[in-house]
């Protein structure tokens, strides 16, 4: 299945992309989508514990099962003020 991945803040710089289309096995979870991304962009690994995710504009957990066409957003924490 294909999903759209939106990346924010530092994750955009580490991958060089704000939006990516990814192919995943059917029934993959958000966590699996992140791991697959981190395999291609190893510098993302440092964010694994702290990154937040949303599926179709709703906050979601890594265990959430994805469906074809879903839009996943990965949001690293930002602290600037």
């Amino acid at each position, binding site marked *: 299945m294909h999903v759209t991945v939106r990346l924010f803040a530092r994750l955009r710089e580490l991958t060089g992309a704000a939006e990516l289309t990814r192919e995943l096995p059917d029934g993959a979870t958000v966590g699996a989508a992140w791991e697959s991304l981190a395999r291609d962009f190893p510098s993302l690994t440092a964010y694994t514990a702290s990154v937040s995710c949303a599926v179709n504009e709703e906050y979601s957990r890594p265990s959430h099962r994805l469906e074809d066409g879903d839009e996943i957003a990965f949001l690293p924490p930002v*602290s600037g003020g």
Partner: protein
Amino acid sequence: MPTKILIPTPLRPYTGKKDAVEAHGQTIGEALRDLTSQFADLRPHLFTEDGRLRSFVNVYVNDEDIRYLQREATALKPGDTVSIVPSVAGGVVTFEDRGTRSAGPEPRDLEPTLTNDEVKRYSRHLIMPEVGVDGQRKLKAARVLCIGAGGLGSPVALYLAAAGVGRLGIVDFDTVDFSNLQRQILHGTPDVGRSKLASAKDRLAAINPEVRIDTYETPLTSKNALALFRDYDVIVDGTDNFPTRYLVNDACVLLGKPNAYGSIFRFEGQASVFAFPGGPCYRCLYPEPPPPGLVPSCAEGGVLGVLPGVIGTIQATETIKLILGAGQPLVGRLLLYDAFRMRFRELKLRRDPDCPVCGDHPTIRELIDYDQFCGVTPAAAQPKAKTELPPELETTVEDLKARLDRRDAVFILDVREPQEYQICRIAGSTLIPLGDLPNRLAELPSGEGAPEIVVHCKSGARSAKAVRQLVDRGFTRVRNLKGGILAWIDRVDPSQAKY
């Protein structure tokens, strides 16, 4: 068995003024259709012409939003209570829905009256029904605490003072630096070197002398936060680091004070209202802090000067709505702003029942050590080990200058970013940003008789990493320039500008 459906005030004219009605159905959809067959005038308010539930009508079964259940197909059990919650513009939460009054003190009893001067000053508020005299009096009675008088704190404090918030507290312990002026519009060029609080107080008093400004020149800590927050109705998080963000969040949840949250990075910002009754908190969004040093600060990563203006004014807007108890607060929604693409997005966010601080069974019942939680060691006690290199891998700017003057062969490697290189550089240096270094080792001198490589960055931390990488890759003649280009400008070439 019929289901009880609670009817909100605006819809009661269509149910014979009844505030609760019984309807039959196995699912929400069936029960609502039964309801509208009993009260035909109600139908257009709940359903579109083609029979779909209107998007701005929110329906809850026993306090659960059906959008998070099976929507109209959600099954009803005996004893279930259904609530219909319409909202004017499709917002998720209204103050009325939550049975929550404004965040300010109870009106009428202790609201101060407005003087004639105040009536003139706030006339543009007073003539709007959403604010009016009552709302302006709520603002005058309200107490808002702003954490930080920097990028976000500047517009927040300026607008809240201008809007007539009666008492404004500000916590900060920094002094104004030239590099702040690009975005921290509370402070001006003549304020450089002054305490930010003294500067803020002068500026805010000039805008609105009616506002009482209380300044707290201290770091916010687990020891002082609860006592400080108790005197305020709304807390505005304009801080610049993770330990303080978790501290502000937890203190707000423990005291039940709403937290108008904002955070910025380069061209992107986030805003939300946390710790509002029934809504999520910062930990529901980010349960785990990032490892220390992973997320660049404004000083490290840079920030568009206007960005905190946009996010800070959103925080100020939400604060005013919380005080007025009007509109749909930014609760349960994380607003994301991308200034570069000029795009706002919104993510739905719910309270996490397992949240350690605002969940159903909280494990955090008092403030903790937030530096430890975030893995940060206080600066004073910080071991130098992380960036410290053995002496044979270091050199000083004086030594480098002497070697250049003697025309020794030295290869100066600058591992900063190209935009930093444009600001200032050491003549004859070669730029390879740290991130590119592993792929560009072939450009470095190596082998017999190769010159020594002196690596530098802005202040010495990135170049220390580069030196370690190069040593690991077998480079033997390599040294880190202690203090980086800042030390070079301070002690060798003061003609160049520092950043």
